[in-house]
């Protein structure tokens, strides 16, 4: 096929840059001084400062992951680890500074707020500046706040779970996040409470060369249900930005947690995220994970199936444009009997883009009657596009049913011709096929996210074929 590379960055939709309204930022680079300044600035309790400093100690000792994407361009000394955009947390839209509002307007936040009264919590740089939650949910004991507020106002629950699923020495980027984390969401759903409307947060990196190290902690008590949604976008800059988030989910007995994210970082962002959930008896955890944009993404949402009949789902979609590497996958660890997991991955590579699927299924000796299903499909749009699959299976119990299917295909000439014979241009026909390929993923999204995904894909497809 003929390729005319036209990277997304050129017309990156959210590649605008507002006037920097930061009111506090630490100096560049990582040190005890910087970490202490962050903690003091936030007025944190002593235990959190200790937690941060311990994590800082782990950071240099943990190796850079050598097995995934190329991370050699990251310069840890050239990054602002904490930037605070406004003085205080705002509760009303009217209080939000105009330049931030402009940004939110373009991202559609006010509309989201009108539509989803259940709660909108948006992160601007490191701090949540705007946040609202429906009174009704509050009455039922649901907590939905930024993580800093969670620590401040709900310290008992917070401390009980924080850092227990992903310890600070888990991997290099978890150490980094643990040392300098800021913002992110804190969700607590009491026993038996069903949160019918998705809780939404919108993240965004704005200051040049600042990292974003948000931390999300979701706790679903027995028999509860919650769907948390997060969308991300970042403006385009000349130098590389780092995003290293940590997400921890605890689904207690019979709870059901769905975590949906669509990330659309600009193409200079390193997106290195550690996501892990534990599912106890009869609990279900679903990761719905879409990755567009970024320079490099490394992300492998994990589910530890700790209790009998726990169920895990990982449904992911990745789009790698020229110059981008999406290294994504999943991990399902079957600890208890009668546990089931289902992994569906769809990836598309365009131009010189590269997608990798890295999946790890582990079945421990005590886990019998386990069912595992893995299906990953890759679509290549150009001759130079690349896709690879690294499935790892560690099965220590014979009583396991495993289904594994993988495919790599090119956009079919006959499919293209069929659409073009109806008058549809090659570019639009390719976009239709691409959208169709992501359909199993898109149909799991709330309507406006599915629409947004389609638009982002259409944008990325522009100039795809000549």
């Amino acid at each position, binding site marked *: 096929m003929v390729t005319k590379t036209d990277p997304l960055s050129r017309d990156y939709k959210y590649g605008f840059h507002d006037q920097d309204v930061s009111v506090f930022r630490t100096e560049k680079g990582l040190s005890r001084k910087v970490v202490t300044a962050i903690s003091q600035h936030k007025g944190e309790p002593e235990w959190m400062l200790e937690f941060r400093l311990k994590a800082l100690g782990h950071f240099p000792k943990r190796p850079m992951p050598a097995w995934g994407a190329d991370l050699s361009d990251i310069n840890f000394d050239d990054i602002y680890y904490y930037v605070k955009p406004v003085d205080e947390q705002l509760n009303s839209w009217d209080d939000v500074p105009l330049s931030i509002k402009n940004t939110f307007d373009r991202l559609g936040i006010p509309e989201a707020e009108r539509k989803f009264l259940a709660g909108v919590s948006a992160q601007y740089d490191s701090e949540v500046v705007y946040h609202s939650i429906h009174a009704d949910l509050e009455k039922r004991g649901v907590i939905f706040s930024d993580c800093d507020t969670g620590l401040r106002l709900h310290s008992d629950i917070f401390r009980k779970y924080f850092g227990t699923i992903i310890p600070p020495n888990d991997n290099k980027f978890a150490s980094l996040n643990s040392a300098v984390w800021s913002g992110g969401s804190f969700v607590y759903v009491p026993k038996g409470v069903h949160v019918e409307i998705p809780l939404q947060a919108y993240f965004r990196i704005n200051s040049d060369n600042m990292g974003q190290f948000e931390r999300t902690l979701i706790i679903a008590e027995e028999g509860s249900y919650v769907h948390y949604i997060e969308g991300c976008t970042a403006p385009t800059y000349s130098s590389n930005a780092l995003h290293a988030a940590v997400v921890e989910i605890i689904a207690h007995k019979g709870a059901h947690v769905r975590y949906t994210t669509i990330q659309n970082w600009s193409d200079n962002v390193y997106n290195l995220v550690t996501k892990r959930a534990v599912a106890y008896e009869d609990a279900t955890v679903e990761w719905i994970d879409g990755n567009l944009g970024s320079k490099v993404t490394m992300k492998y949402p994990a589910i530890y199936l700790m209790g009998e009949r726990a169920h895990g789902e990982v449904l992911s979609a990745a789009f790698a444009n020229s110059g981008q590497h999406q290294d994504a996958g999943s991990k399902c660890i079957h600890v208890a009997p009668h546990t089931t997991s289902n992994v569906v991955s769809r990836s598309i590579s365009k131009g010189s883009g590269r997608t990798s699927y890295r999946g790890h299924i582990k079945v421990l000796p005590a886990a019998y009657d386990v069912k595992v299903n893995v299906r990953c499909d890759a679509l290549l749009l150009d001759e130079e596009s690349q896709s690879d699959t690294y499935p790892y299976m560690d099965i220590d119990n014979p009583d396991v049913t495993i289904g594994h299917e993988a495919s790599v295909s090119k956009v*079919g*000439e*006959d*499919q293209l*011709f*069929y*659409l*073009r*014979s*109806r*008058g*549809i*241009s*090659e570019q*639009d*026909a390719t976009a*239709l*096929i691409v*959208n*169709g*390929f*992501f*359909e*199993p993923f898109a149909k799991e999204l709330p309507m406006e996210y599915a629409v947004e995904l389609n638009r982002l894909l259409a944008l990325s497809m522009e100039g795809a074929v000549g």
Partner: protein
Amino acid sequence: MPDPAMLLDVAGLHATIDSKEILKGVDMRIPHGEIHALMGPNGSGKSTLAYALTGHPKYQITAGSATLKGTDLLPLTADLRAQLGVFLSFQHPTAIPGVTMVNFLRAAMRSQGKELSAREFLTRLTYEMAELKMDESFRSRYINDGFSGGEKKRAEILQMALLQPQLAILDEPDSGLDVDALRIVADGVRRAVEGSAGKMGVLLITHYNRILEYLRPDTVHIFSAGRVVASGGPSLAKEIEAMGYEGLLGEVAPVSASA
């Protein structure tokens, strides 16, 4: 010289696939408003002609001409030919998982400058689907995905009805249809011709006389080894049915044998 008064004018058309010549000098003229049947043995190149006229990139045209109302089709890509009003009902329609019929149909109409408001479109679609006795659930099905043979054929006719082409090339729209479905499809074609105020032309590729009894072609062409070898009135189709191609044409060689 191509005749601009003629809807379709094909002269001396040669086409190859993977450097194998399949079309070996096709001549065919279809005036506005006429239905022409094209019959011929398996492998004689009928579908190849359909693809060559609609611009499938796998086929290279090595000689000859093809014009629609005097406009040279050959330099145009498939989408541009469709925008000029050429439509192909596929012998074997391709499935496109994940793309719903309704999205596809809207995209197709938009691309041809025939976009309707969402409301008008739904009204049109509902009407045409009812005429073709298609269940409304097909709207949200993926293109041809899991459709039965007969359902695919109806879906092709549905597209023709919505797109209102100048020239409809129908490649075996009747194969695999039960008697009722055959009548529904034939009615669909006739409706489209009548709705076009006598302007739409049809090239109907078929193996069976039955659909011709419904549609009463103006001309029947017999195709053999990559060429039109005989043309005549509807009686020609009956003769084929009675005598077979061998009986009618003598020894009939498929292209593959003569290449």
